[in-house]
């Protein structure tokens, strides 16, 4: 047993005045006797033979001493130490990913509630010399409180904690905890989670970790994928993929598909154990519509967030491609492709924005487009890293798995432009600027790409007219790959439901204030950049988000969980860290230090009652 407030022990000095005042102020019944002669002798004899007789025989005084002692001990805040050692500072990582909302039984408690109960128990028994810091993590981690002993602050932060419909990322939480070590040292972290994250991580633990795994939840069934692909005849094929948790038994249910709030399809489905059935709906529309898939199962479904998914279908139109007439080879290759319109053209005015721009002129960079393919131009931000020399060269290597270079053979192509990396440019200099090297020459990159929001930039650092590429069979394939990338970038060929976490990049009017509202009272104000881009909008809950800029009609976008990992409710039993350290999960509830002050207070109250009873029975002693 230890004491949290040991300095309160000075209160024991109160025993001295208690004893003194007791004997000074003891209200004894007066008993008149003929003489004190004999009693004086008796008392003298008693004092000599038993100096502590008064204390031993005087129950009332003993009760008062006992009562005061109990109160002082309670003030010293004793507690039973359940662990051999206790950290002075303890960060508590609480998983708030989607799977933490899973219930253990119909109408039961969620795993987050179970985690909150454990943390609340820790807070309730928090000794004064221990500080807690609460960190919640889903897809990202955020610090709820700094290290504090303020129970009220901790309870308020804990009560405000809610599940986010996102996948869990343990690394984010550990990095946040690691960042805390810079301001306050600690050597142990408490992790409360259902274990629904990868069993292996590259994080190197600078501290010990106490992984408390919460009890398993009930069976879960949900939608793990929701996307659509354009089909011939102005139709969309809509795909809905279902999955169940590992422990779920075979169940039956139905999937409803709504189009702008109207049910356009219903399919009964059986979810065999371990299977991931895929349903296909066909929608005939060339207008932008909002689709919503809803899964309903016959039995208990522990997690509701993954039972619905939303998908936005864009309007059907041909891909608008800008290609200067002087790029004859490109225009020739584009002419063989369907569903595209190549500008400029004489019979049709150019639109305000293009889906794809091919250009070898810096002037065309002012055109608005989601996908830009630069030919023989070095992007402005790369000019410090690479320069193009008029030398013949060949490709050394290229990324064959890249969608842009699929089926494109660069091995026998001769380039008369030689991109040369600057001597000071390091290997990761391109990556730091967001560029990915797709093809590498002997002295520098030949092809790079960069994705910025919903904009895709492809830069050929050589001019194709000064290479043998247009004469190769891979050239029309490369052009087709670029068109496919532009179609995907514009959402014209296929589209997938947006996931929770962060909304996909959106293009709105430039430099406009945008008010975003969403499920669960979500509200946020953002501003578009010069290009009208709006990125990094958090979407913690599944549902519809509405963007309003005050001029155009509100824009709706749905966010869905769509996470096979979260739907599976899989729970790891141990975590392997980069330094070969393995941390096993503990499912038993950790024993918190038990505070004893209230026990002493109760005993003190009983002693008070006994003393009262004893005092009341004292009359009539003679």
């Amino acid at each position, binding site marked *: 047993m230890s004491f949290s407030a040991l300095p309160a022990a000075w209160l024991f000095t109160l025993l001295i005045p208690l004893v003194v005042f007791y*004997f000074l102020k*003891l209200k*004894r*019944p*007066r*008993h*008149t*006797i*003929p*003489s*004190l*002669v*004999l*009693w*004086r*002798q*008796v*008392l003298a*004899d*008693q004092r000599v033979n038993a100096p502590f*007789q*008064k204390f031993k*025989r*005087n129950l*009332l005084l003993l009760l008062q001493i006992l009562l005061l002692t109990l109160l002082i001990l309670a003030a010293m805040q004793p507690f039973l130490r359940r662990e051999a050692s206790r950290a002075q500072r303890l960060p508590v990582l609480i998983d708030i990913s989607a799977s933490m909302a899973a219930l253990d039984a119909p109408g039961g408690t969620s795993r987050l509630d179970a985690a909150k109960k454990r943390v609340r128990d820790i807070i309730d028994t928090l000794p004064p010399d221990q500080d807690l810091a609460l960190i919640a993590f889903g897809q990202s981690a955020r610090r709820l409180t700094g290290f504090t002993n303020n129970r009220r602050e901790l309870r308020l932060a804990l009560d405000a904690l809610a599940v986010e419909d996102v996948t869990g990322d343990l690394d984010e939480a550990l990095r946040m905890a690691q960042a805390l070590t810079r301001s306050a040292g600690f050597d142990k972290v408490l992790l409360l989670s259902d274990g629904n994250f990868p069993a292996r991580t590259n994080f190197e633990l600078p501290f010990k970790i106490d992984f408390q795994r919460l009890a398993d939840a009930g069976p879960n069934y949900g939608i793990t994928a929701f996307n659509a692909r354009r089909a011939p005849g102005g139709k969309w094929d809509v795909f809905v993929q279902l999955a169940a948790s590992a422990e779920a038994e075979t169940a039956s249910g139905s999937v409803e598909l709504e189009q702008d709030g109207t049910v356009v399809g219903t399919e009964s489905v059986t979810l065999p154990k371990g299977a991931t059935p895929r349903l296909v709906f066909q929608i005939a529309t060339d207008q932008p519509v909002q689709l919503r898939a809803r899964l309903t199962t016959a039995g208990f479904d522990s997690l509701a967030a993954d039972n619905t998914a939303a998908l936005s279908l864009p309007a059907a139109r041909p891909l608008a491609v800008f290609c200067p007439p002087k790029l004859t080879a490109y225009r020739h290759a584009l002419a063989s492709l369907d569903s595209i319109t190549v500008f400029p053209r004489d019979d049709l005015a150019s639109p305000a924005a293009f889906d794809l721009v091919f250009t070898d002129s810096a002037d065309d960079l002012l055109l608005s487009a989601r996908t830009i393919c630069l030919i023989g131009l070095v992007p402005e931000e790369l000019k410090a890293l690479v320069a193009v020399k008029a030398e013949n060269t060949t490709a050394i290597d290229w990324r064959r798995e890249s969608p842009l270079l699929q089926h494109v053979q660069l091995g026998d192509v001769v380039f008369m432009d030689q991109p040369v990396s600057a001597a000071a440019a390091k290997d990761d200099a391109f990556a730091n600027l967001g560029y990915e090297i797709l093809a590498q020459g002997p002295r520098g990159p030949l092809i790079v790409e960069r994705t910025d929001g919903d904009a895709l930039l492809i830069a050929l650092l050589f001019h194709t007219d000064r290479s043998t590429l247009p004469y190769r069979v891979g050239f029309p394939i490369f052009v087709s790959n670029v068109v496919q990338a532009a179609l995907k970038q514009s959402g014209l060929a296929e589209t997938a439901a947006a996931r929770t976490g962060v909304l996909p990049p959106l293009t709105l009017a430039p430099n406009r204030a945008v008010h975003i509202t969403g499920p669960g009272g979500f509200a946020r104000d953002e501003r578009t950049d010069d290009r009208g881009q709006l990125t990094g909008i958090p979407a913690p809950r599944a549902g519809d988000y509405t963007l309003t800029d005050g001029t155009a009609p509100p824009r709706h976008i749905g966010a869905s969980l769509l996470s096979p990992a979260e739907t599976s409710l899989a729970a790891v039993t141990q975590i392997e860290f980069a330094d070969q350290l393995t941390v096993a999960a503990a499912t038993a509830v950790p024993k918190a230090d038990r505070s004893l002050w209230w026990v002493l207070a109760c005993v003190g109250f009983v002693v008070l009652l006994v003393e009262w009873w004893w005092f009341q029975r*004292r009359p009539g*002693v*003679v």
Partner: protein
Amino acid sequence: MNAPQLTSLLTNRDLDRLARLRLNAARRFTNRARGEHLAAQGGTSTEFCDFRDYSPGDDVRFVDWNIFARIERAYVKQFHQEEEMHVAVLVDASNSMLFEGKFDLARQLAAALGVLGLRAQEKVSAGALGGVAQRLRPCTGRMALPKLFTFLENLAPGGKTPIEQGIELFLRQHRGRGVAVVLSDFLSGGDLRRAFNQLHSAGLEVFAVQILAPSELAPELAGDLRFVDCETLGHLDISSAGDLLGLYHEYRLAHEAQLTGLAQQRAGKFLSVSAAEPIEQVVFGTMRKKGWIV
């Protein structure tokens, strides 16, 4: 028809019974004045005591001529010397005697022992100890009985003077040898040895009667108490008094033994009685058995 009570202290029947008894003083500390008390030396009473050889100068009237006729030797008859004995009855009238009939029994005993003295033609005086100076001057003869009774009946109790101091004051005015009957509880913090010595030095055989209340002989106490001395008003805090009763009895008996010793060392007598005992039992029972009166 019943005769009227001579005194409220004793019944007429007790007075009749007392008429046949007398104080049994062990030593012959008596007055030179003639009385009914037999002196140790030969006297002139009619009660034969002994013979002795005749010496020239003896009064020939006391020669036993019958013996002289038979054996022709002159013997002188001796007779008991009846001398007057002074019976001083001292009653403790201090506050401590006001408990549970102690003072009443003391007055009754004083009356009984005074009657014994007066009936035996002794000189009887009485005094109160511990309170206001009250004294019955020496008197003798049966005619003094009412005087004795009146004195004792009107004896005013209450006072704080210790018994040893009261004895000392009494002895300043006392003349004559005999018996000093001291009726008290002897619960005094003073030097009782000195008081006994003074009585003995004054030629008084000490008849000490300790009268204790039932609550003093067998107190029933428990818990925490504050004892207040009725005389000095001093107090004493006692915790768990019930546990101290055994020790109290030890000290009470030791005190009794001490008083017994003090009396016997001075050829006196000591008796401890309870205030709850009837006067008849004390006088005709206890005192007769112990040889105080015969």
